[in-house]
């Protein structure tokens, strides 16, 4: 059966055999699957309502107003002792909650990100009438469906772990946020409905008005998902920078005030962008895996193209991400200078050196993938000679970023060195050097992309030389400005100027990228193809770069999750609700890294399972003599 697309594309789309994960759910478990998510949502509703009411009851008793049934519940954090934290033999409550929360976040980031870029790709497909985009969008959303159920399962597990291991904390938090938890649970109905309609209705809602309905469903899906994330972000940022409570922690009754705390919007922005980058990298890993196991050249070409697009999405979101992170850190400083200094100048400072290694890995592998990808077209040989300079600059910037400031030395070493800093490399350890380095890394990554764009084309506009000269001048001026802001304001002024100078640095980088891309696309309008782009002609090691991107991203997210939580140190809710459990101590960075590594391995295992499912469902085992439909009947 075929359905003619009246307006979008001229080919008919056959209802293809149910391959991929779609088939798995089409068979029998569709209903049970949806039921399980609905049950989970009801469970969440019930728990949040029950605990909310329960919190009110117990606290009312504590405040001595049990006799007066109409008294308003006072929600205040209790003074806990180690005995108030339930234990289960052999299970470390803190590590359990840590791992489950992180696993939930990894999956949640993925399932929130995919609809964002699927929506955009579908829109691009509608605009350009290129069917490939629509098909790629469909394949992307297929991958995230199983991940959606795992997200819900891990969310439920997180909820139970919190209730089991930190009941008083959960009671307090649900007292403050009970209302929002209720809406959170209800929103899952909306998100599930939107997601299933969006996915299962993909082939049905094609053509003309129906396609617009479909796109709107995608929009609703994103709206629901983003709202869910914003709600959950409110709970977590309340723990870091509480608002709507008095200094003793007594809740004033306004949930919006508690939600709309200092760090809410910085985390919203950072997580929104980071989710997109992360989703792109996971989808890229999927494409890389399918590429490596592809047998036919068309398959290879298809998954190579998919991997490229995924990498493009990941890099696109990766470029503004350091700025969102810097904004978050700046807001942490503004909220509490102590928290900020502990974060970057105190015990967590070395953690950011590990972060530097990971971000360097991300940028290098993303760039490496682009450079390998240039080999798809023979026309790229013209630009090969420039790549080594890009590599040198990116590696040098990474090394600057990775240089620590204060060295941990013994007394003898201190005497020999004459202080806790290296004489020449020490100055590279402070933020201005690092801001400059990261801005240059971002600029040169964009430059890699510019080279990639033109690898198979030659411009035919008359002003090519002028255009190239202008781009070169733009980049030079941009880099000069970055260096001026970084060196002058970084080393010859005071702290206030140093921090403020980072903003024009960011804007310079973004302006250079946007303008040069605009100039480039104008320059290559109507360009002639010099040599065809051979999708599929890319070395296998490029696919490993995509795996590295996914693994490094996951590990980095785990590390940053640890920082975000660890910065509270011995507080459940900063300054308001003290953590008095036996595990309240801040662990060493090595320990934290080990927990994150275990989490990453668990997550990767689950993701591999999801990818494997996508292959399994298309396999058919021929059966002989099992069925009743024998010949001749």
């Amino acid at each position, binding site marked *: 059966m075929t359905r003619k697309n009246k307006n979008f594309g001229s080919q008919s789309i056959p209802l293809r055999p149910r391959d991929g994960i779609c088939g798995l759910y089409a068979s029998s478990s569709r209903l049970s699957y949806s039921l399980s998510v609905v049950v989970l949502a009801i469970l969440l509703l019930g728990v949040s309502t029950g605990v909310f009411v329960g919190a009110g009851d117990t606290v009312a008793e504590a405040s001595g107003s049990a006799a007066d049934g109409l008294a308003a519940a006072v929600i205040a954090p209790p003074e806990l002792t180690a005995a108030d934290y339930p234990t289960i033999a052999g299970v470390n409550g803190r590590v359990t909650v840590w791992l489950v929360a992180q696993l939930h976040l990894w999956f949640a980031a993925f399932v929130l990100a995919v609809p964002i870029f699927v929506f955009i790709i579908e829109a691009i497909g509608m605009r350009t009438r290129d069917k490939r985009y629509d098909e790629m969008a469909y394949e992307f959303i297929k991958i995230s469906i199983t991940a959606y159920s795992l997200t819900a399962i891990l969310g439920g597990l997180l909820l139970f772990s919190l209730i089991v291991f930190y009941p008083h904390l959960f009671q307090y938090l649900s007292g403050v946020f009970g209302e929002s938890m209720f809406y959170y649970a209800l929103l899952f109905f909306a998100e599930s409905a939107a997601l299933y309609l969006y996915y299962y209705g993909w082939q049905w809602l094609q053509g003309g008005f129906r396609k617009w309905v479909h796109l709107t469903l995608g929009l609703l899906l994103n709206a629901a998902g983003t709202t869910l994330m914003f709600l959950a972000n409110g709970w977590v940022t309340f723990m870091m920078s509480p608002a709507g409570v008095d200094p003793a922690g007594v809740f004033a009754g306004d949930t919006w005030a508690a939600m709309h705390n200092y760090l809410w919007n910085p985390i919203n922005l950072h997580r929104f962008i980071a989710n997109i980058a992360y989703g792109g990298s996971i989808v890229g890993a999927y494409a890389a895996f399918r590429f490596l196991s592809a047998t036919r050249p068309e398959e290879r070409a298809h998954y190579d193209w998919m991997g490229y697009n995924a990498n493009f999405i990941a890099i696109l979101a990766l470029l503004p991400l350091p700025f969102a992170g810097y904004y978050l850190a700046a807001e942490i400083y503004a909220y509490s*200078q102590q928290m900020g200094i502990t974060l970057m100048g105190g015990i967590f400072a070395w953690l950011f050196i590990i972060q530097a290694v990971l971000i360097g890995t991300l940028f290098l592998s993303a760039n490496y993938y682009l450079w390998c990808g240039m080999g798809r077209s023979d026309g790229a040989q013209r630009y090969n000679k420039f790549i080594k300079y890009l590599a040198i600059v990116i590696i040098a910037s990474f090394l600057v970023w990775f240089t620590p400031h204060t060295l941990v030395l013994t007394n003898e070493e201190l005497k020999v060195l004459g202080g806790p800093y290296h004489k020449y490399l020490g100055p590279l350890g402070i933020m201005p050097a690092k801001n400059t380095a990261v801005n240059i890394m971002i600029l040169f990554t964009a430059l890699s992309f510019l080279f990639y764009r033109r690898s198979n084309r030659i411009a035919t506009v008359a002003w090519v030389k002028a255009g190239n000269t202008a781009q070169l001048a733009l980049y030079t001026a941009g880099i000069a400005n970055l260096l001026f802001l970084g060196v002058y304001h970084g080393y010859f002024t005071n702290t*206030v100027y140093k921090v403020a100078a980072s903003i024009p640095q960011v804007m310079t980088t973004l302006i250079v990228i946007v303008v040069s891309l605009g100039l480039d696309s104008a320059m290559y309008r109507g360009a002639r193809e010099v040599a065809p782009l051979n999708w599929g002609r890319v070395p296998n090691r490029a696919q490993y770069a995509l795996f590295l991107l996914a693994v490094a991203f996951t590990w980095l997210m785990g590390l940053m999750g640890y920082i975000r939580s660890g910065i509270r140190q011995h507080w459940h809710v900063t300054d308001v609700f003290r953590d008095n459990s036996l595990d309240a101590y801040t662990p060493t960075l090595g320990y934290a890294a080990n927990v994150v590594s275990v989490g990453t391995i668990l997550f990767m295992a689950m993701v591999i399972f999801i990818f494997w499912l996508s292959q399994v469902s298309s396999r058919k085992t021929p059966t002989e003599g099992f069925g009743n439909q024998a010949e001749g009947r």
Partner: protein
Amino acid sequence: MKNFLQVIAFSLLMIGFFAAFSNFGIPEIQPAPPPVQEKLDLGAMTPERFITLGEKLFNGKGTCALCHNAVGGRAPPLDRVATLASERLADSRYQGGANDVQGYLVESLVDPSAYVVAGFGKAGSGDTESPMPNAAAGSIGLSEVEVNAVVAYLQDLAGTEVTVEIPKGTEGEATGPEPVTGTARTALASAEEIIDRFGCVACHKLAGKGGEIGPDLSQIGASKDASYLRQAILDPAAEIVEGYPPIMPVTYEVELYAGELELLVQYLAALK
């Protein structure tokens, strides 16, 4: 299958690299354990002990050293703040209500924005808003006695006169960053218990029985008064009795609680 295993191996290798770098590539720093409530008896607090308490708070619970340190840049240095106080009080930008050095120092702990040293204000506030938190509230939460202790320390640091009133006999609370090795030692309730616990009879004679390494204390109250005895316990090196070796432990200053010291001193002073 081969692809699959290769990808697994590669991923495990990379994860292993990140974990190995975090464990061995960066210095292992043990973060300080969470602070513990420690009861400090403030009876018979000497000025020296009070200043030492202030220093302990400055580096510990007060978290002052996090920003006010030799690295500079984050907060003004405090080594001479007590001498600079009078200048700042006279400064036109001063917004607070203190009239003397002690008042200024206390105010700068609880209301730091009353006067912000030039260049250290929050960005964009023109040095009218301080990024320093109120040290008596929130997570620092220094009590009034602790604030005074820190002020005493700062006054002593600058070499000026310590004008803060040393607390006498009133019980207060001070928390230090002592690790949770166990519960803090409960204060002993009688002089006999203290003598027993600290083994004084190993070197001194009491009630005719004990060692002969140190002076006989059986009737020490007849010849020496309470203040001499107090000093002899806290700072033995100040005056060694002739003919005896200068080997009395100097650690009682930190090991004895103030209340216990007082009990012991009163007991010895009564031995006539």
